[in-house]
């Protein structure tokens, strides 16, 4: 008769060093082995959708900044495209180019945070500092153009709040030359480090069909091998003018779709974003960025669903307008909200230390999960 053991319920509670925000994971563990994981969310719920119904269209933009506070440019971009599609207005070329550059810079900054915290959760503290030093360059670029470091309210409906700073182009080129060798240094220090590979390869393998069925998107889906990117599938703004590849998980180190693949897809994506910025930075056309901003924004009665490739995945805005100046209903399809559902599937049979590695590789932000 086997020894009767009862399982222990461990609360990786709202205050935990590596839950990337206020998320409570209820782990049912037997010794170190995990039987089931139940995420509890809602600790950071700030009623974004209720607020949006009380605000006018331009006033909602500062609220969208606070959804995925690590990629605020991406949130603005999504919301602004949705409303412009509803209004059906034409955007000047210069605004499109600047928006693409800002979104790609924000993707690099957000991936830097994702990679840094993923490494720090597994124990490597030094890459965390190097990557935050590089992120500081990007934040100072943003601060130079629109005055804020993380929550910009920069992209307005029909244009931008500020034109780019005179020496923005020079500083961005400086950043690109500085940043390329540091990616190589990161690969030496962390990506191909045997202990890091040991900790992330074959851990939390997400097969492709469950990934699609769970609606995962972004590096989590691409890590499982499907090259699905909204910038290529459903091109918005002027992304069809730039050529860049979509990196996918190939299982260089372990199985396809494990933590290492999701991590390595982010590293490759940073390089692709650098290429896009290089293609866009040299030919920004002249023009006034505020010419197409309508004085009073009253979209016609109707619904729109626009989606944007945010660093964490496919961010979608579903807006219903009933003809007056406040939106009738704004629903945000947050990528981390959907990616976190996979957590229950991924962690079965792993150890407590793997939960941290898997959570780090999913790269969730509680701001957009709880809205």
């Amino acid at each position, binding site marked *: 008769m086997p020894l009767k053991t009862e399982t222990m319920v*461990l609360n990786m509670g709202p205050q935990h*060093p590596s839950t990337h925000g206020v998320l409570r994971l209820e782990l049912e563990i037997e010794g*170190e082995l995990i039987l089931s994981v139940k995420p509890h969310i809602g600790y950071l719920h700030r009623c974004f959708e209720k607020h949006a119904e009380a605000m006018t269209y331009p006033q909602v933009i500062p609220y969208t900044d606070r959804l995925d506070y690590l990629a605020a440019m991406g949130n603005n971009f999504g919301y602004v495209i949705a409303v412009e599609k509803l209004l059906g207005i034409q955007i000047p070329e210069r605004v499109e180019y600047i928006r693409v550059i800002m979104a790609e810079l924000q993707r690099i900054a957000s991936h830097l945070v994702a990679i840094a915290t993923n490494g*720090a*959760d597994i*124990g490597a503290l030094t890459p965390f500092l*190097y990557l935050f030093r590089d992120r500081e360059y990007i934040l100072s670029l943003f601060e130079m153009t629109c005055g804020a470091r993380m929550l910009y309210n920069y992209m307005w409906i029909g244009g931008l709040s500020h034109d780019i700073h005179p020496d923005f182009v020079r500083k961005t080129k400086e950043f690109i030359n500085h940043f390329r060798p540091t990616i190589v240094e990161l690969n030496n220090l*962390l990506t191909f480090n045997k202990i890091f590979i040991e900790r992330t390869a074959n851990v939390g393998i997400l097969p492709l069909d469950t990934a699609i069925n769970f609606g995962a998107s972004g590096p989590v889906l691409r890590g499982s091998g499907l090259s699905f990117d909204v910038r290529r599938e459903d091109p918005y703004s002027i992304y069809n003018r730039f050529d860049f590849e979509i990196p996918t998980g190939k299982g260089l180190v372990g199985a396809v779709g494990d933590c290492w693949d999701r991590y390595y897809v982010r590293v490759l994506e940073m390089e692709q974003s650098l290429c896009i910025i290089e293609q866009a930075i040299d030919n920004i056309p002249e023009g006034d960025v505020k010419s197409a901003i309508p004085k009073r924004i009253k979209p016609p009665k109707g619904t729109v669903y626009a989606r944007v490739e945010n660093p964490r995945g496919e961010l979608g805005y579903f807006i219903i307008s009933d003809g007056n100046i406040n939106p009738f209903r704004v629903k945000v399809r947050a990528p981390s909200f959907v990616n976190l559902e996979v957590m229950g599937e991924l962690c079965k049979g792993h150890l407590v230390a793997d939960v941290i590695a898997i959570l780090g590789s999913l790269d969730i932000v509680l701001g957009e999960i709880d809205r």
Partner: protein
Amino acid sequence: MYQFLYDLIGNEIIAGLLVAIVPLTIILVFALFGIWLERKVSAHMQDRLGPMRTGWHGWLQTVADLMKMLQKEDIIATDADKTLYNIAPVLVFTGSFAAYAVIPFSSKLLGSEVEIGIFYVLAISSLVVAGILMAGWSANNKYSLLGAMRAAAQIISYEIPTALIVLSMVMLTGTLSLDKISQMQTSSFWNWNIFGGAIFGLSKFLLIPFMFVGALILFISTLAEVNRIPFDIPEAESELVAGYFTEYCGMKWGMFMLAEYGNMFAVSAIIVILFFGGYQSPIGYFGNSVGVQWLVPFEQGFWFIAKGLTLVFVQMWLRWTLPRLRVDQLMTVCWKYLIPYAFLNLIIIGIISLL
């Protein structure tokens, strides 16, 4: 040292106490310096400056931390097991402090020249495990319990490779006493055990590669005994908040820190004695050449601490480069990699020493 004091005072208890004071001060001074060194090394490796406010380059920082820890309120969790909770830090600190009894800092200052030096060190260092288990269990906190279980598994299983390498060294040098081992590696660095010891001929050259492998294995396994990255699973900050000493605060937590740094230096002292010639200077003594005889013990002390500190620096260097292993990988590294290599090393050294 003890004999000298005993003749001076006559009463052996006081003499014994006085002799015990010297390693205690060494540990305390080293712990203060070690914590400061760790913060500065980690800072400069991460392109930042580390503590700069308290004194030149922040050298008073650890003294300030000590003051803060001393006056911190000592909170004990309500349903913690009071007695075990209070004994645990004392046990852990004595475990690491007792190892200093046999470490020869220089030919004069060597504590008790007991014959079974290295065997005693191995035995005492496993006392730390009992302390850690007590700390983890008595804090009545799930995270500390997990941390304590991991610590027990890790330290016990890593004692085997350490014992094997120590066995191979004892077999080579023939004695258990640390003092004699250091004395055998005199005059130049070429006589250090890492380069085959003070023997001549073919077997010396044959030994060199296996000595390097032995030193590496000893370094890795003692790194695991001291719970340093990549083996700091018992107090993994990102998983178990702070492992077995999560519930401790104030001076009790300070005792754990002191024990960790004391252990770090004790372990690197063992490696220095076994492989890098104890307190012998690599290039001969300045005191001998100039004829000032009483200067030699101080030089020996200087060389011993210098070698110890370089090894401590390497431990810190590893801490700020490598990620952390998982518990089962830790076991595979020990049982599947370190122990077979240590056995192989033991056999080959045995054969070579027969030549």
